[in-house]
């Protein structure tokens, strides 16, 4: 007697045997699609360790769980962005998305078109069974017109997606369609996809006898039979004729196969090549040795940097508000004042900016609070000093000018009116002076120099250091001259006032 021998099934290697039998109904096309994928993987020569499969939700979504690969069963519609993260974080992975038409084309439709557009390196297998099978056979974005489902019992009124056409329009470099009755062609297409860089898309039309077939007089094998008999297999099918009607033949074949730089290739070319040197323009980094405090984490005993001898001691927080029109560089002024105080004068400074919905042109303001001790409340509520560079800004912020406060303005651009007598107005033709220096854009730096000469709360040395660290390379000379011009104007004015 011959002993029966139990051999491994040739596909066992790639299946989680302990999870079989699967949940799919008799007559369902999903088994054939999964089987074709296993065959394609086996012939691919890929190291399976580096193959990952991602599914969404639904009958097809269960496929990930049956493959003996790194497999991810995600949320409804989100397989593609999840797969995008996997692939980009580890480009060595071959990432396959295996999901259904409702999952990929309805709830996940936005992800589908954008993944194709950006040509992200994933392989998408979309099994289209014309309806939502797992939830009981409702209609969806691929349900043919007039087809009956549990939610289109009078016949579907909507036009379905022509998915291959959609994908081609989005720029997918590989697009094919087969039915589950064509395992051989499916396998060939999948094999090509596994070799293809960039985004590839395969639509597989598959029967759902339990739900779709039952309600459309296409029970069990009849639907599959129809695919076999009615499919038009073409070497170069016309994608515009690939619409699917309930009774029409189904155009199959490879619609698109072209070369286009994949997302990862483009990233390498356009980004990686340029990032070697990135100058943090205006980042104002200062070495720790020169900084007022050591980070709490630092164990190194190193002495804290010496407190500068000219450090202004500010007992009560000083509130400063700067206002101008967008583009005048008022924000940069605030930034430099903040850096000077917080880093080089070893004081505390808080800087905030008022945002308005206009991207450019509206009056805007930035505020700084300076103190030698802790600053708690971040907002300037009662400015001690205001700097205003334009009439539009004056009109908007005049309400904030308090009795007894200091108001620094551009002499030519701001006409102050309706102010309490106690306001100390100090004016400089900053824009005119900047023009004389050859560049109107440095008017903000001129007024900053003027501010430094008059306001005792920030040391000159700190301001000069902060200025140098906050301006683009190559503009130092002009900016320093602008600063000096404003500073000298202020000092001269003070001297004259003293006389």
């Amino acid at each position, binding site marked *: 007697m011959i002993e029966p021998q139990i051999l491994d099934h040739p596909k066992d290697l790639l299946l989680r045997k*302990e*999870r079989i039998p699967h949940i799919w109904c008799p007559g369902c096309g999903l088994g054939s699609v999964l089987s074709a994928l296993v065959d394609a993987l086996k012939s691919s020569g890929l190291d399976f*360790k*580096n193959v*990952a499969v*991602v599914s969404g939700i639904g009958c097809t979504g269960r496929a*990930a*769980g049956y493959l003996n*690969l*790194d*497999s*991810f*069963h*995600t*949320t409804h*519609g*989100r397989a*593609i*962005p*999840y797969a*995008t*993260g*996997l*692939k*980009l*974080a*580890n480009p*060595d*992975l071959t990432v396959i998305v295996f999901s259904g038409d409702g999952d990929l084309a309805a709830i996940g439709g*936005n*992800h589908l078109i*954008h993944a194709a557009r950006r040509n992200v390196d994933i392989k998408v297998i979309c099994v289209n069974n014309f309806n939502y099978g797992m939830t009981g056979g409702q209609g969806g974005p691929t349900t043919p017109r007039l087809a009956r489902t549990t939610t289109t019992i009078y016949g579907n009124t909507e036009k379905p997606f022509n998915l291959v056409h959609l994908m081609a329009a989005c720029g997918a470099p590989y697009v094919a369609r087969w039915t589950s009755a064509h395992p051989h062609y499916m396998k060939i297409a999948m094999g090509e996809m596994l070799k293809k860089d960039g985004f590839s898309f395969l639509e597989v039309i598959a029967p759902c006898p339990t739900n779709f077939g039952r309600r459309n007089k296409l029970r069990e094998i009849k639907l599959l039979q129809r695919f076999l008999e009615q499919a038009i297999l073409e070497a170069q099918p016309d994608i515009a004729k690939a619409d699917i009607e309930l009774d029409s033949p189904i155009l199959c074949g490879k619609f698109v196969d072209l070369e286009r730089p994949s997302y990862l290739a483009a*990233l390498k070319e356009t*980004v990686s090549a340029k*990032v070697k040197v*990135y100058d943090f323009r205006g980042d*104002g*980094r*200062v*070495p*720790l040795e020169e*900084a*007022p405090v050591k*980070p709490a*984490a*630092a*164990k190194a005993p190193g002495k804290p940097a010496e407190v500068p001898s000219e450090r202004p001691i500010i007992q009560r927080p000083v509130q400063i508000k700067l206002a101008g029109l967008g583009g005048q560089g008022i924000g940069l002024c605030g*930034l430099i004042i903040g850096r000077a105080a*917080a*880093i080089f004068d070893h004081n*505390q*400074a*808080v*800087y*905030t900016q008022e*945002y*308005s919905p206009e991207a450019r042109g509206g009056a805007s303001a930035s505020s700084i609070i300076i103190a030698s001790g802790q600053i*708690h*409340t*971040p907002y300037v509520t009662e400015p001690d000093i205001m700097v205003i560079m334009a009439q539009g800004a004056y009109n908007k912020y005049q309400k904030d000018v308090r009795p007894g406060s200091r108001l620094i303005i551009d002499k030519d651009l701001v006409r102050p009116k309706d102010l309490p007598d106690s306001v100390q107005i100090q004016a400089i033709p900053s824009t005119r002076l900047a023009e004389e220096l050859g560049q109107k854009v440095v008017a903000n730096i001129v007024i900053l120099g003027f501010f430094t000469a008059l306001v005792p709360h920030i040391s000159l040395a700190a301001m000069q250091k902060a200025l140098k660290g906050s301006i683009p390379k190559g503009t130092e000379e002009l900016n320093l001259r602008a600063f000096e011009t404003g500073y000298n104007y202020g000092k001269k004015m003070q001297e004259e006032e003293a006389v």
Partner: protein
Amino acid sequence: MGKDVLTGTYFLTGNEACAAGALAAGCRFFAGYPITPSSEIAERMSIRLPQVGGVYIQMEDEIASMAAILGASWAGAKSMTATSGPGISLMLENIGLGVMTETPCVVVNVMRGGPSTGLPTLVGQADVMQARWGSHGDYEIIALSPSSPQEAFDYTIRAFNLAETWRVPVILLMDEVVGHMRERVVIPERKDIKVANRPGPGEPPGKFKAFKPKKDLIPEMPVAGQGYAIHVTGLTHDERGYPAIEWEAQEKLVYRLVKKIRLNSAKIASWEETGVEGAEIILISYGVSTRICRAVREIAREKGVNLGLFRLEVIWPFPEKRVQELATRIKAFVTVEINYGQIALEVERCVAGKCITQLVGHGGGTVHDPQKVLEAVEEIAS
């Protein structure tokens, strides 16, 4: 390759500091979608990540962003996204997936005024309960709240370390003020920054079960490409990761997901007490509102009122034991937050009538007026 830690002293916004913190913590993947007031984080990451060998991608929406960072995490990268309230509303679906599949990642919410589009450029603190239970189903999560740009840097690192240690999405609840304000930020040297990494698999493929709890109820985490043929699903699953649609599996899994945070809350919860000993009234606050409370304390001290401050560094899990304990010794807890009572409810629950609880709420758009807070305090004190 560029440096991931650019040591030095800066004058940074909270958003910029957050991005710097993420890189220092080892973040190498960012997926996001522009939204005020968080966009500067994405902008900074788009510049910096390619310099350190990481990937930045702008997705088609926040749903995709959240899905992408989960995928990246399972590919072995520390990953992050940043958004504001409306974006969080979209991300909650996949935050739930992250919780269920125990996926380490960091989600930054720079809170603005809501509901709906609300106040895009102005502050709010009303997403606190959303952070806790916004996704469907029962779970526990970790959320932190920085009150300054320096803390934005420090807490982003903490957030990554907590996510990696406890294998859960960690939410950094910043607010618009902290995100946009500039202050001195010190970035220490690389060697002085503590970084935690997820526990890797201790057994070879075959025997190993990817969702079997180990130390502190946390499973060891293999990633894609290591040969473990892992299965990761949002369905209720067994220790192998396979779907198990039955109540016993549900109890085992979901109870562990809840317990791994609750039972370890002493290791996770974090708060700061100032002048609490001997205080009759304690202010309780977080984020930018903490700063206002500090100002209130200073004014109160001048007036001779002894006021304590209990400031939440980690909001979730909530330090319930400590709040319970303090409630037996004081006259009142006054919660100061930019919403109409979210943490205040948590305080009330913990206090359970043992002392007075009072909310000083605010609709958002700006911070509290310290005088208003003081008035509430004085009313209780008198």
